[in-house]
């Protein structure tokens, strides 16, 4: 993505992607139930980061409020389950995407009218409005207690797979892993096409030189809005998939530090590459689990690492790897 010609031949891409997919398919056999569940979380965050990076890496817009779309997706699923008594995952996905679409279209419309600084501020402010609403209207949202989404009520594939009865936890973890994996692969492919489409090129042009983009006839504000909505939808999908896994949704996922986590994982992986956010999200997921376990002040750690990354390793893991390999090969 970073400008120079990428060898986009189908065979080369498959040569890289296929082994990874095969590994991901086979992993649950080897890593056990806890790790499988953990990896599922990682995959949902990867979808969120992919969506986020369409805005940051490709369009040059840094949003501090993506927790809003993740949370919107999650809460919608919770509402659908609790108030409409619908537990089909497919219907929950549709419903969640719809509400996320509404919110990201609205917020996006307000935010893309502005320069990058005010853009960031507005995204933060709007996400905090949502957060405060989740708190204040506690009789609807469950306040700080949140809303439960019981795993054994969920059904997959239009009711073909349910999780009632004995052994349901085991079955849930494994089935849900493959469900999320499938959606992750689909989401990645879709995002890959978008990023490498003429639309994706137009976004990069807007990122690189907004004036010139206008002077080749691109309506910058409109394209930014499209990117914003698509980005919100991906992050919303992540929230939708996350909530049955977590079993619970609370205002925490609407609170600004969660937006910070999304930013962090993207920067960690490298926001100027396509795969960076995926790698960053999965790596971050493990980092968080082990860091939280060892320290109360992990936000401090996170912030410190973020600062170090920005100064020392701005291209992130995926961005730095080619240089590292280059050095190793030469020595």
């Amino acid at each position: 993505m970073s400008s120079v010609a990428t060898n986009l031949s189908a065979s080369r891409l498959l040569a890289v992607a296929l082994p990874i997919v095969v590994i991901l398919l086979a992993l649950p056999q080897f890593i056990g139930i806890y790790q499988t569940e953990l990896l599922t979380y990682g995959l949902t965050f990867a979808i969120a980061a992919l969506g986020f990076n369409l805005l940051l890496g490709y369009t040059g817009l840094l949003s501090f409020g993506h927790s809003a779309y993740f949370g919107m997706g999650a809460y919608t699923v919770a509402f659908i389950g609790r108030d409409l008594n619908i537990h089909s995952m497919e219907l929950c996905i549709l419903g969640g995407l719809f509400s996320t679409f509404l919110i990201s279209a609205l917020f996006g419309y307000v935010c893309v009218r502005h320069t990058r600084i005010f853009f960031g501020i507005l995204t933060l402010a709007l996400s905090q409005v949502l957060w405060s609403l989740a708190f204040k209207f506690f009789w609807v949202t469950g306040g700080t207690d949140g809303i439960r989404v019981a795993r054994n009520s969920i059904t997959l594939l239009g009711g073909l797979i349910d999780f009632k009865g004995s052994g349901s936890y085991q079955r849930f973890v494994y089935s849900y892993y493959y469900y999320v994996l499938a959606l992750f692969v689909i989401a990645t492919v879709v995002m890959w096409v978008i990023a490498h489409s003429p639309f994706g090129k137009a976004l990069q042009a807007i990122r690189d030189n907004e004036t010139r983009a206008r002077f080749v006839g691109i309506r910058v504000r409109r394209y930014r809005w499209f990117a914003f909505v698509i980005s919100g939808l991906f992050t919303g999908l992540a929230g939708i998939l996350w909530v049955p896994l977590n079993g619970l949704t609370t205002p925490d996922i609407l609170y600004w530090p969660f937006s910070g986590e999304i930013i962090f994982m993207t920067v960690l992986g490298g926001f100027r590459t396509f795969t960076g956010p995926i790698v960053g999200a999965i790596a971050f997921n493990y980092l968080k689990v082990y860091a939280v376990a060892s320290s109360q002040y992990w936000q401090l750690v996170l912030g410190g690492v973020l600062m170090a990354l920005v100064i020392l390793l701005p291209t992130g893991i995926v961005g730095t790897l080619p240089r590292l390999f280059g050095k190793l090969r030469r020595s």
Partner: protein
Amino acid sequence: MDILVIQLLNSIFYAAVLFLIAAGLSLIYGVMRIVNLAHGSFYAVGAYVSAWAVGSVFGAAATGSWQLAGQLLLLPIGAIAVAALGALIEPTLLRPLYNRPEEYILLITFGMLMVLEDGMKLLFGGTPLSAGTIMDAMGSFHIGGLLYPAYNLVVIGVGVLAVIGLWWFIYRTRFGVILRATSQDRRMASALGLNVGSVYVKAFAIGCFMAGLGGAVVVPAQAAVLGMGIDALVLAFVVTVIGGLGSLEGALIGALIVSFVRTAGIQFFAEIELAVLYLIAAAVLIVRPTGLFGKG
């Protein structure tokens, strides 16, 4: 009637604090064209350090006018600490990024925000820290049939002094001219022999000092709590959105508007007062994208 006067005073009190924070943010943006996302956290650090210092040195039982004078003198220490922090941060963390796309500055100041917020939790713990002894010692006076804390007038006074002082500093002193020149055209200023690096670190430190001072003066009236930095950040941004980034008058008008709306809002729509502020900010941005007085 008395209630109206009290509400008015409260609004001005709040506006004074908001002005300090927003003016600092605007100054930094005006001179350096960067936005410091950790600015609200600096405000919080100022509050915590001041409260802690006053509490440690004078303790909870401080009474008497000498004690009061001492506490008042010690109070600005939070602002000084924050200014020192800013002077350290600018050359080490910010300067390497000036030539990179502006996302980098936003990212790193966001990292600072996270470090500071948790750092305050680490250093000062979860319980609110207050310098309430000052407020108690200064007592209250009557407005009609109601009592109003005398300390709040001190804060209003500080706010007024800050407005005058800043205006004088920027428009009447030599360094103010240098600041304005650098903000207009950095390369030109450098070509004219001005040490832009030195101007930047000073401007940044002054901006941080203002935020810290806001925290320092507010903490006798309102205890320092975790999360106050984020609230302050968002409010400061609403102020600068309304008044415009980079403008002193904008910070003042914005602070007054936000403060009055908030006070009125709390009376009538306590639930959605924050939402009303955001709506006003959004509305202003739609009509005048750079704010009422903003530089582009």
